């Protein structure tokens, strides 16, 4: 069995175990309502995490995702407050803005050969500030809480049966992305560009274009998540999404996509997203302070990464020893 399969098995086992423990500790945990709300939470993070998984597969990082969520929701609110345009016009515009931000990130990273972290950290700062500037203000100049009443927009927060639309979209997007990554040339190019950019170039892959595409997709995912978040809250605030990077990164890393690039897939990210959502929900259901959520999540990231590094080191050591032994034996014969 492959490493990632073992990892998924362990995580799924943990998911079930924690679920059982929680349902014993607090019977309301198993209520359909709670489960669906938890899935809704997971899906909001998960949609962003899908884009982020692709970023990590290219060995990059995107620190701007939270700020993209903020700016997208502010764009929507501006349309709602100052124009009569219908939702089916301004929502695509907001999604396109997410893609455009991703393009800018990708352009600076590839064209000027800048570190991904620096570029996206800078755009994060710029976008977070812009979100505050374009936020709708009252007469005193304070940010106004705009209540969204557009029924088309609000329908994004609705359910189909008991399942929230965002959960359905998350699952469909996950399946489509997984299929795209594994079964199309473009997906293969993304893996190759992350695993070994030099080799990818020598094989005729346009690495720069591939990277720009991935950053655009990440921006798109963040923007999409933002729409669902605003629809659910029935309002939008310029702080939306800021700080959400922690949950997103945790979900992807726990799911088994390393920072080194070339490896990872969406299935792992789905499990990682569920895991984080479960932990957060569990903390609430156990009556603990929500303030410990980031502490626990930070701890989980450390534990996972340490386990990964330890395992990798162990496996490599074994492999090189075996290879050397073999080499020595045949040298002996050859000498």
């Amino acid at each position, binding site marked *: 069995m492959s490493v990632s399969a073992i990892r998924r098995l362990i995580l799924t086992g943990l998911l079930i175990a924690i679920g059982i423990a929680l349902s014993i500790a607090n019977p309301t945990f198993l209520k359909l309502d709670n489960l669906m709300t938890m899935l809704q939470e997971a899906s909001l993070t998960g949609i962003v995490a899908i884009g982020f998984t692709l970023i990590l597969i290219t060995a990059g990082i995107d620190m701007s995702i939270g700020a993209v969520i903020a700016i997208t929701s502010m764009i929507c609110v501006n349309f709602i407050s100052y124009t009569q345009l219908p939702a089916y016009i301004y929502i695509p515009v907001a999604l396109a803005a997410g893609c455009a931000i991703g393009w800018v990130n990708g352009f600076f990273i590839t064209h000027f050969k800048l570190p991904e972290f620096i570029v996206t950290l800078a755009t994060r700062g710029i976008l977070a500030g812009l979100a505050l500037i374009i936020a709708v203000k009252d007469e005193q100049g304070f940010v106004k809480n705009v209540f969204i009443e557009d029924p088309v927009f609000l329908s994004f927060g609705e359910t189909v049966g008991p399942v929230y639309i965002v959960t359905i979209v998350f699952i469909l997007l996950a399946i489509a992305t997984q299929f795209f990554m594994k079964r199309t040339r473009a997906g293969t190019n993304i*893996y190759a560009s992350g695993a070994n950019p030099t080799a990818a170039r020598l094989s005729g892959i346009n690495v720069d274009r591939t990277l720009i595409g991935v950053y655009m997709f990440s921006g798109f995912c963040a923007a999409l998540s933002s729409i669902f978040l605003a629809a659910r809250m029935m309002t939008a605030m310029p702080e939306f999404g800021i700080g959400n990077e922690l949950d997103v990164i945790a979900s992807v890393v726990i799911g088994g996509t390393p920072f080194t690039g070339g490896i990872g897939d969406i299935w792992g990210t789905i499990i990682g997203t569920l895991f984080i959502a479960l932990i957060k929900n569990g903390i609430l259901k156990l009556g603990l302070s929500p303030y410990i959520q980031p502490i626990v999540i930070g701890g989980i990231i450390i534990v996972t990464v340490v386990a990964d590094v330890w395992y990798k080191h162990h496996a490599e050591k074994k*492999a090189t*020893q075996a290879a050397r032994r073999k080499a020595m034996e*045949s*040298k002996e*014969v050859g000498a």
Partner: protein
Amino acid sequence: MSNNVKSDLLLECRGIDKNYNGPQVLSKVDFSLRRGEIHALVGENGAGKSTLIKIVTGITNRNAGTIVFDGHDVPVEHNKNASEKLGIAVIYQELSLIHGMTVAQNIFLTKEPLMPGLPFIDIKKMNAMAQEMIEKYGFDLKATDIIDRLPIAQRQTVEILKALSNKASLMIMDEPTSSLTAKESERLFKIIRMLKAEGITVVYISHRMEEVYDLSDRVTVLRDGKLVSVLEGEEITPAEIIRLMIGRELTEDESHHKMVDKRDREVVLEVKNLSAEGKLNNVSFKLHKGEVLGFGGLVGSGRTELMRAIYGIDAFDAGEITYLGKSYSPTVEKSIASGFGFVPEERRLQGIMGGISITGNIGIANLDSISSPAGFVSRDKELERTQTAISTLNIKPANPDHLVGNLSGGNQQKVVVGKWLIRDLKLLIVDEPTVGVDIGAKEEMYQTIDRLSREGVAVMVVSSDLPELTRLSDRIIVLRKGRIIKEFTEGVVTEEEVLRAASGIVEGGAK
């Protein structure tokens, strides 16, 4: 051997000139390949082999000359993609394979078979196509193997399959056996002959004379960026190739450096049966006070590994080291404290900190002697030591605040040596002392080493530059595949003798 091959040429380069904004790397080189021949390209380090290959494959552009490939003129603005389309493939060690992907994915990267009418990869078909190719050539592989788990030799066969799937008519192999075992090399030679039988032309670059001798139909010898000779058939013998590679009729004092027997002096370092799995095999030698002991051998023969083990960077599995009469188990800290100096092979990576001043670079290895017991560094002492190093070694510019990254290669190397000179030095290890160093600074480096040895410092020198090795050493040990294969102790030694030993040619005949 095969004179009756169709006389038409696959590749014809005429009068190739190349300079990288400075020294002429290639001048008026002619290089031609016949269809379906195995053609070896040989020359010493820096002879221009890699530059010639880079020009043919379009990684770099020529300054002058014409190239005709398969009847087509190749323009000066040639590039990698264009050369691939022409059917030129380079087999890299493992550079162009994608980790985490299967053999089949690597072979068909960017040209995966798609399902009819859909943009989706037909994985089954791709695996089947790859498996068919593997079986056709009888390789020991599975289409679904993940690259990461394959040994280097098999990764190479994946590279070859990838080239074949590109319909390459010319395959260039650069030092393909340098990390292969004897058995694996044999298998590779079989594959190369198979390629030849299919009409594919193979260019083979190697330092290992016995391989060149066994495989090649023709041999092109380069020296100092010029074409020396093209050998064919009976003319190809290891001794002749080595003679041509070294070339110039050597003057007495240039090549025949007389060795000095200093083995009656006090033993500084004794190494007994040192072994490290896959790197060193039962290495034993003694190093004496004031002696310069040279280590020759091919790249990968274990010279650098031996130095690193003695200095305490890498662990070893078995063996004993005695230093100044006492048993010694090395760690870097202990080595520095006991009077070792180490000038590593890759200056930029391991020797200098480019963004820091000369003072800072020299201070870092001497913090023990320039700081107070409380741990504060004395700037005055640091500066004083740096001035000493600058004046003894003639470092230019003589400005202690100058950033080391902005110095010339030769002066950078002086800073690395300078770190150790200002200490109570007893043993100096120098790995490739003059790589990337200009001629003037080279001579200064030699004089420094001579002077140190006169002062009683024991020196170990690793060098692939044969004139340098013979010029510096009082005694030369040649390593091959982690073992000591030959030791030159007295009289005169020629570059030719060292190269023969390093190539595994023992007393004349090919092994």
